[in-house]
């Protein structure tokens, strides 16, 4: 099981940022590596993709 080590709002390490993402923002940075993700927002959800850690979908969160 992978453990979140980065803020999904800014990509910084959780030791530097404890989570600045806002309630109505999709994750923008990978929680595992802090890399900026490509995020597709669709009417009923979102799909975020990290180059190294794959795809995360809103319905799986």
């Amino acid at each position, binding site marked *: 099981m992978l453990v979140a080590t980065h803020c999904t*709002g*800014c*990509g910084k390490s959780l030791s530097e940022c404890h989570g600045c993402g*806002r309630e*109505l*923002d*999709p994750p*923008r*940075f990978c929680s595992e590596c802090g890399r*900026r*993700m*490509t*995020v*597709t*927002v*669709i*009417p*009923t*959800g*979102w799909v975020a993709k990290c180059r190294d850690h794959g795809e995360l979908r809103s319905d799986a969160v």
Partner: protein
Amino acid sequence: MGAVTTTPVAFRSAASSHASAHELSDSPPPPPQAALSAADRALIAGAEKALLDERRVLGGHELTALAALPDGAVMNLAALAHQVRLAWCGPEVEVEGILSAKTGGCPEDCHFCSQSSRFDTPVKAIPFLDRDEVLAAARETATLGASEFCIVLAVRGPDERTLQRILELVPLVRDQTGLNVAVSAGILTEDQARRLAQGGVHRYNHNVETARSFFPSIVTTHTWDERADTCRLVKAHGMELCCGALLNMGETDAQRVELLTQLQELEPTEVPLNFLNPRPGTPLGDRTILGAWDAVRWIALFRLALPSVILRYAGGREVTLRDLQAIGMTAGINALIVGNYLTTLGRSADEDLQMLEDLRMPIGALSAAF
């Protein structure tokens, strides 16, 4: 940038002008309606007579006077705006879904936008989604009771390849979902407007966002007049014009009234009303959020200025109005974007549909033909 509105007309608390963008403004509730003077009541009665008895559109001077009414008049303005909406548009509410089909990487510098390539924002550019992704999003939108689906692209204007993709998608989405298809793809040439109209685009979105006099403070890579030219091309070629506004970018109340009179001249079918949701990394990223009652005031003023338009709740309403979203629906709004926005999330479609059910507002398709 960073100017704040200066006229003392609404619920602009001192707290909100000093709060960080992450804090919600803390506007007080409106005072009792009994606080209104005879002159204020007469002003509202005059607007009621013009809009409901004479069926006359208000002019700039009348709108300026209404905008300067004291805080205690907001619910009066909202009540009149609701009556006007029912009289001019009927009880139906139009529901629409939108999709950012091409995200980020935009060369323009709209200071509110996280999709501009000129600002360091968390939004990473994504090329045009493929056909199946767009169709899937449209099908989801149809299940939410929507009658309209807008395909949005972050571009200055469409190049030939992009235009071809749009022209391929529009009939596919319409035929496979039964939805009216709208498009938002920036500044158009006359030939592009003609081809989009012939290709079945029902409504074209091109927001002017703000007053002509304030626009250069927000966008420097193109002009307000270029946007207005595209709006006129849309109408000239037979598409319905969707031309919206974004409030709380630092414009004054006088500039909001200016915007209203400019929208009156452009004669859009639909006006999506956005409230600034400050985006990290943009020049407006540190602005505060508009007070909820201030938003209600301006929803009502938009309806009073534009009695026949489809006035749509759009981006920023969740963070601005919070629990007052239902009041906005009874202050002149008769359409909403359901589900998520382009790069941010909305509240759940179930919450919006429940709100409409509770308000006993029927969902229906609206058009320019009322």
